[in-house]
């Protein structure tokens, strides 16, 4: 991260509801760019978003945005997953209403509303009532209301949910535009790994409230030069344990395990193979990793399950 101020920094963040721990000692920091927040249902993504927005208080640990522990909601634009619209309002009125809630004067809110809706190619549709909008248009209006006050950080919860492929690509293009051209930081919470791979620079992976990974996307999925997929049979668990930190993730395939490994100059391919064999594992396949986020994501979840067992 260097001297650059982290957009979001979480330190030992824990949130408990009674005896249930929803977030467990989560620590990560992310810098400017598009950050993919990944995790299956119940991973703790929504709780983390509420904590970032200051709508909930952590049981322990702390969270800071742009180096400040006090949440400044005016600096954040939030697009919820739920429809969260007022069907009787027209598109531009709703966006202006969001602007007024953000502290803009009525006149400025209306001007900004039209600017953003222009930018999102909403055309004359902005003058129709939200109740008549398609899912794609609702998602655009929700994005527009998050942007109306020109925030530094956008938190988008499932922005491409329910969109057809062209609309989804268009939405991802908008996100890239706002991040690359306008310098916004975007947290993209989604189940769609393809979306993350398409636009994100950094990834935070959560499962059962634990942070499994937080790094750049490139580092997570690896590249052909130093990341490998190994199919291990025999004594699989001991082989994974023997690999230690080199094992980025694993996926139980029933009878054998897919192991994702990152090498560097200090631990070459031969050494990795030796460690697996010494631990009683049998190597069925040893191929360079294709850089697929799906494989790595499921591997991370499986590794967590294996270690827990």
């Amino acid at each position: 991260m260097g001297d650059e101020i982290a957009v979001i920094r979480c330190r030992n963040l824990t949130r408990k509801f009674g005896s249930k721990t929803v977030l467990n000692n989560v620590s990560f920091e992310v810098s400017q760019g598009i950050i993919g927040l990944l995790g299956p249902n119940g991973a703790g993504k929504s709780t983390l978003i509420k904590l970032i927005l200051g709508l909930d208080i952590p049981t322990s640990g702390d969270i800071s945005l742009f180096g400040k522990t006090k949440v400044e909601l005016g600096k954040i634009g939030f697009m919820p997953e739920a429809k969260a619209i007022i069907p009787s309002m027209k598109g531009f009125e709703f966006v202006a209403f969001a602007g007024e809630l953000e502290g803009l004067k009525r006149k400025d809110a209306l001007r900004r509303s039209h600017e953003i809706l222009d930018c999102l190619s909403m055309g004359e549709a902005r003058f129709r009532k939200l109740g008549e909008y398609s899912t794609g248009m609702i998602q655009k209006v929700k994005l527009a209301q998050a942007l109306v006050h020109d925030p530094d950080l956008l938190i988008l919860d499932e922005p491409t949910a329910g969109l057809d492929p062209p609309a989804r690509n268009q939405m991802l293009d908008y996100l890239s535009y706002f991040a690359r051209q306008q310098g916004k930081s975007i947290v993209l919470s989604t189940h769609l790994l393809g979306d993350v791979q398409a636009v994100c620079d950094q990834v935070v992976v959560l499962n059962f409230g634990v942070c499994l990974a937080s790094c750049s996307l490139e580092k997570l999925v690896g590249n052909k030069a130093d990341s490998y997929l190994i199919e291990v049979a025999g004594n699989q668990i001991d082989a994974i344990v023997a690999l230690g930190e080199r094992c980025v993730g694993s996926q139980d395939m029933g009878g054998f395990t897919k192991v994702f490994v990152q090498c560097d100059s200090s631990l070459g391919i031969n050494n990795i193979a030796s460690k697996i064999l010494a631990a009683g594992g049998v190597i069925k396949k040893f191929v360079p990793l294709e850089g697929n986020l799906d494989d790595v994501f499921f591997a991370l979840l499986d590794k967590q399950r294996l270690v827990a067992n």
Partner: protein
Amino acid sequence: MEFLKSFIQGVKSQLAVHLFRARVGHGLFWVSVGFLMLVAGVVVSVNLKNQWNYKTLKPRGQVGLNFKNSIEMIEAGSLVLGHNAGVSAVCSAVASAGSGLLVQSGFPVFTKNVVFSVLLGFLLPLWCLTFAVEGLGAEREGKTLFWLFSKPVPRSSIYIGKFLAVLPWVLIWSLGGFFVLAVCAGDCGLFAFKLFWQPIALASVTYASVFFFMGACFPRASLIALAYAFVVETLLGSMPGSLKQLSVAFYARCIMFQKSAELGVVLEQGGGYGDFSETMAICFMMGIALLFLVAGIFFFGKIELRGQR
């Protein structure tokens, strides 16, 4: 100062958006319309039969002559006893007084049977909850609360702004409904409306505060509000003894009782409505409204939106 500014902004934007956007198409609204039409139909039918008076009033136990027959008999008696000038004169005077009473009896009969029983005991709570529960309840069901909370305005401003936006609808609906019933009843109804619109308006504001609180703080608030309206206002409100003091309707009845007493009309003997002066009853109702408003602001500020995204 910053808080005050965002508070005013929050109230203003809620008012601007919701003042002209009450939801009128939902189920409870049509139930309210249905009951208004039903009761208005009964009132019209009674009016057509010219029965808003003591004409059919009978002694306790429903035996013997009714009020009108008694007057006719006394009139007949004055003719039969024409040879006795003194007795005949007394009979004529009693018959004239009775006829006068019959003409003037519409007001107490309408007030007792429609305003005291049906309107205050059932219709008014139902009409008020129709709009008041929907106020923030609809935001909760529509999942816009989470979105609203992500805006930098105090929750108290959302609560008060929305309450102020809902209030005119509650007043228009309850006073409008009362006016429709009054028109259907004819002169006696219009006289009752002129005399009682203020306590009905005050009761409406109090109900609005109670039901708005329920809508803001409880899921499935419509059911809770209906249960409250039926158990507290309809059942407890019509019970003998001091239990009825738990209902809002009791204090509205106290004011009406005092107003009628000033005209020399005693609406209900032994109901305990004379125990509270008009000022005391007004203070009680305003106190209840204020109590629920403050409680609502407090609990609304503490709401945890678990499960909302």
